[in-house]
């Protein structure tokens, strides 16, 4: 009960502080429009924001000064704030670099870029480099069970906390280096997700444009077919098909991965089809398409030379989002055991394998962070891609402010 009273008290306090803020601001600045036209609700928002900010700073201060065991309460909080500050600085530096190096065009691009987008670009760049150079960067092999090293070494590399400096992120339950597996995971998970998304776009995009351009019965058949596919919950559908596919593939793991790519691509291409058809239908009615038709152009030219260049920005934005979904689907399937098969390193599988350590969170947060590393890698990429996509959508729609 007293908890609710406290909350109520804070909110009322915010309200009073907000009113005071607006009133004082108006008096001090002699009626600047910013303060003068500020409604109470917005002033309340400012006050509430200030309270939350103070709370965050205070908690962070506690996290850095308290001793164990109280500090365990703040372990993940501190890590999150540390990471946030680190990423913000990295993104800011990256943007600064982009602004001072490169051609006029890229400089301008970076000048107009919000910090979120530069963070997203930087993250994607790092993931791409990790994936490409995984073999060089990873200290151990992804399948290598290191002789002489114990299983389940905690991350952190601090012997006092049960870590080992040779394995900065620890080892998993059969003694494989987690850092190496994370790096190889970038190659496997991200690479396969990228290939799957491309396939989904080639399939869905082409059919969608065809349906938009030709219309008639072809449009009806394709659209209703897509409706049927979309009516089935996608993850359950994918699970079902993967179960069948694993029976077909037998013990050939490469073949199973190929089946997975095709299955997820087909399921996701239905969404791409919808978008491509809708965007295409808007472009097809333009006079320049009519002019091209009257010139006697063929279907291929119409779709790839006249329609596609105009549909590229919404499709690109959708590509980013779709990539995230595909990526999460693969991770979920792997988590459920039908996706990428061991011993290949995959983030979804890694989360599943280490999942039981989450129970340690209350008293040994260092140990509990092992499964969260892979989960964090997934989350980070998803957030990064979404930031970049948001920024691209913003640019392509010409929305300012």
């Amino acid at each position, binding site marked *: 009960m007293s908890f609710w009273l406290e909350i109520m008290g804070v909110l009322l306090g915010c309200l009073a502080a907000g009113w005071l803020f607006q009133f004082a601001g108006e008096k001090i600045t002699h009626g600047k429009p910013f303060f003068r036209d500020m409604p109470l609700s917005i002033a309340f928002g400012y006050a509430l924001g200030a309270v939350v900010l103070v709370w965050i700073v205070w908690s962070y201060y506690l996290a850095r000064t308290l001793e164990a065991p109280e500090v365990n309460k703040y372990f993940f909080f501190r890590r999150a704030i540390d990471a946030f500050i680190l990423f913000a600085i990295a993104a800011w530096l990256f943007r600064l670099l982009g602004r001072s190096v490169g051609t006029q065009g890229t400089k301008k691009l970076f*000048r*107009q870029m919000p910090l979120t987008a530069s963070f997203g670009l930087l993250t994607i760049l790092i993931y791409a480099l990790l994936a490409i150079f995984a073999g060089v960067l990873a200290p151990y092999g992804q399948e290598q069970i290191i002789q002489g090293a114990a299983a389940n070494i905690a991350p952190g590399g601090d012997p006092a906390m049960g870590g080992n400096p040779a394995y900065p992120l620890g080892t998993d339950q059969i003694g494989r280096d987690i850092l190496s597996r994370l790096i190889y995971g970038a190659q496997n998970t991200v690479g396969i997700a990228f290939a799957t998304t491309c396939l989904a776009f080639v399939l869905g995009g082409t059919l969608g444009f065809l349906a938009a351009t030709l219309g008639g019965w072809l449009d009806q058949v394709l659209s209703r077919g897509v409706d049927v596919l979309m009516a089935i919950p996608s993850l359950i559908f994918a699970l079902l098909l993967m179960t069948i596919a694993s029976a077909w593939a037998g013990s050939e793991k490469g073949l199973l991965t190929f089946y997975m790519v095709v299955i997820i691509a087909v399921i996701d291409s239905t969404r791409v089809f919808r978008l491509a058809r809708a965007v295409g239908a808007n472009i097809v009615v333009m006079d320049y398409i009519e002019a091209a038709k009257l010139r006697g152009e063929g279907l291929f030219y119409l779709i790839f030379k006249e329609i596609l260049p105009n549909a590229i920005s919404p499709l690109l934005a959708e590509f980013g989002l779709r990539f995230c979904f595909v990526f999460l689907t693969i991770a979920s399937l792997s988590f459920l055991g039908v996706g990428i098969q061991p011993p290949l390193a995959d983030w979804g599988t890694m989360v599943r394998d280490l999942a039981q350590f989450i129970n340690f969170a209350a008293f040994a947060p260092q140990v509990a962070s092992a499964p969260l590393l892979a989960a964090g890698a997934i989350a980070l990429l998803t957030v990064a891609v979404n930031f970049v996509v948001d920024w691209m959508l913003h640019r392509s729609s010409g929305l300012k402010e």
Partner: protein
Amino acid sequence: MSRLLTMKDVWIEGRSDESWNPIINGIDLHLDKGEVLGLIGESGAGKSTMGLAAMGFCRDGVRISKGSVEFEGIDLLKASAAKKRALLGKRIAYVAQSAAASFNPAHRIIDQHTEGPVQHGVMSKSESERDAMELYAKLRLPDPEQIGFRYPHQVSGGQLQRAMTAMAMSCRPDLIIFDEPTTALDVTTQIEVLASIRDIVEQFGTAAIYITHDLAVVAQMADRIKVLLKGDEVETADTRTMLSSPKEDYTKSLWAVRDFVRPAKPAVHTSATPVVSVQGVTAAYGKVDVLNEVSFDIHEGRTVAVVGESGSGKSTTARCITGLLPPRQGVIEFDGVALPADYRKRNKAQLRQAQMIYQMADTALNPRKTIGEIIGRPVEFYMGLKGREKRRRVEELLDEIELPADQYIDRLPSELSGGQKQRIGIARALAAEPKFIICDEVTSALDQLVAEGILKLLARLQDELHLSYMFITHDLATVKSIADEVVVMKDGEVVEQGPKAQMFQPPHHPYTDLLLSSVPEMDPDWLSTLLAERGIDNIGDAAVNKMSYNGTQSKGC
């Protein structure tokens, strides 16, 4: 008369490419109670920006950097949001260019009408509804008791524009800003809206700022005219003084625009085979006939203007000729040979012969292709030229349309002005080396000076290349300047056709007469005289209805 609105030394800037660029450079404007001020200028002159600034408002990405806007002693630029809210809608109202885009399609007209008065506490909802019906009646909307209960898509464009004027009037404001309220309308509809706006402004003694690019329209509406050019004021004067003796060269050039008339051509031999012959074409969308037995010929080197209001079947005829809409009956002959009805069945040579130029150059040019690619494609497609030869031909074509090739060949359409885009459309049509070009309202989206340039260009190309044009338009001034023959269409039928000289002289078919007399003239008394001639309730819609009632007895020519 007392001063209502004073705008002093107003500077407005717009943000683009990371910097603030001037839109309005220090313009003064004042308005007395009950006075109507006309703001004219080309597109991009800053008329609309100025109109919005008169309400103390500017669009996103635009700011008023200097100056003051005083409405009855209240500085709108410094007033608080609450103070402005109390003024806008109640004492200052705004009528936008496109009523269709400004009404919320999800609410009934009268519900949107009553929102202002109720919010401002001027009237109760039921009072306001009754008042709306009175206003509808005053604006001569048909069935004023019921029309408000329809949704915006259920009434015509002209009616919607009048409903919007009624809405602006709902709180009896002291000032209304009209932003091109009749630009999107047909001439016959335009008259109605003009007449009703003028009546109601006079009746309630409302002051108004009337923004338009059409001089003849502003001459009817305004007491005083202010001419803008690229954010600067050119001159201000009384309407009559301005029309009879403009001081500045720019104003004179605006006035002179309507003088371009190409010389008449000798009559065609009756035995000559026409380039295009439309014979008894009947066409339908679905089951509804939209064209009924349309026939006319277009001879080599001639321009046939097809006129009529929107919905009369002008563009549908063009679609039949190009083969986009295969006619239900009748044939299209080209050089005496019947063309396949569907464009998909025509061969390359047949497609090449007939080209089309579109009304909206914005949608007619692929925004993602450079000028060189747009013009180069038909060159490559029909002539088989590649590489350097293709580029040389594109440069030739750009020369032909009077654009310097080296500057424009690598640009995107978005980097061109409206008139330049239309020229690219012409070049693309020319690239196919056709004999016949359909021009679908090619000048109606352009400013008068620019449109003039396009017409001159088309006339010159016709003389040089012996082209035949089918010129679709609803602007009779354009017809006067460029046509050799005129075809008047109404409701999918040809009501009258013949050489231009004959068409512009009486006796006319009553519909032609109505069209001709509806074209605004520069004379400030034109509207009053016309209304007196037609009888006050006999304008626009009403006149059309009356005419079709007895129009059958007097088939002209």
